[in-house]
């Protein structure tokens, strides 16, 4: 009579081996899923940041070509990267007055400022547009409600028609902050 014990033992060994291989295989799959999830999470965050960056650039371009600020030359083409100081001084009030009904559709939630660097003795900051995302907390306080902020900086000329026939050109920059 032939004993079946060695065969049974060999079968058990095979089953254990298969279970071990499957176990390792599933662990690998779980690792891959975790890795992919983390990767997707990071790439989604990056994509959000990229979209916000794109909005910052678009807002900068809109501001640079805003007729309320750009240096005009009569019927001729306006000057590149240039703001008129007299227009800037007047535009601040006008933009604040029409933030909700007009400018919000153009700039959305953003903070736009122009800073003069040169001439130094007249260095000034001009606030053109401010609309931040806010939220009211339990005690009635209004706090910033944005989770992401992207800043875009651009160097601009500040034209001042101070001299007879010869305008002076200052040096400054435009700072655009967008929120989401």
């Amino acid at each position, binding site marked *: 009579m032939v004993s079946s014990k060695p065969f049974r033992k060999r079968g058990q060994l095979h089953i254990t081996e298969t279970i071990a*291989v499957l176990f390792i*295989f599933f662990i*690998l799959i779980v690792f*891959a899923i975790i*890795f992919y999830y983390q*990767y997707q999470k990071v790439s989604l965050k990056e994509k959000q940041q*990229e979209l916000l*960056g*794109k909005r*910052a*650039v678009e807002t900068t371009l809109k501001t640079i070509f805003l007729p309320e600020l750009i240096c005009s030359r009569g019927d001729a083409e306006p000057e*590149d*990267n*240039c703001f008129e100081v007299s227009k800037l001084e007047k535009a601040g009030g006008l933009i604040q007055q029409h933030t909700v009904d007009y400018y919000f559709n153009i700039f959305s939630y953003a903070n736009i400022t122009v800073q003069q*660097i*040169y*001439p*130094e003795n007249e260095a000034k900051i001009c606030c053109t547009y401010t609309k931040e995302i806010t939220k009211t907390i339990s005690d009635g306080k209004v706090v910033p409600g944005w989770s992401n902020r992207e800043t*875009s*900086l*651009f*160097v*601009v*000329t500040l034209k001042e028609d101070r*001299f007879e026939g*010869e*305008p*002076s*050109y*200052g*040096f400054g*920059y435009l700072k655009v902050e967008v929120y989401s």
Partner: protein
Amino acid sequence: MSLRDIIVRGRKSGQMELIGLVIIVILITLGMLFMAKFSLSGPSEKKIFTRQGLAYSTISTLMKTTVNDPSCIPGLSARPLQLNGDLLEDCATHFPPGPYSDSDFSCNNKHSCNYLQQDLIPLLLDGTLGSWNKGYEFKVTLLRSTDSTPVPVLDLISASGGCQNRERDASDSSINTDAGLVQGVLYICD
């Protein structure tokens, strides 16, 4: 057990091993593809666009800037002097600065080249690019004739170092003067 059974079982286990090997190869390939995707992703378009736009706007604004300093033209009423048209041209015409080479304008009692190199341009570039932690290099060269070698007239480098061996963008501007062609190049790097 017959010889045929042993051969069939051996063939089956060989096939299983082959499938295992294929799975391992597929997993390794997938891993390598992921790694390649991570390492080959270049700088974002926004970053490049911003740097290019910034280089262009900075050099065009810089060249357009006017100086309203009465000390630049002693005895005359202050009129705005263009950095590009007046001061840079004056610097190139009276280059190199020295005891026997006085420039027409003497802003802050300095030769035009020294005033641009030491006072005005560092003030403008450090106040903007420098304060935003951007590296920059601003070089102005003078080409006296078509077959001569360009002479460096101005050379400014940011406090954080130059843009050599760094990801950079450039924009240039040139003017024709009596002394020759004056070419300015601005490099901006992160």
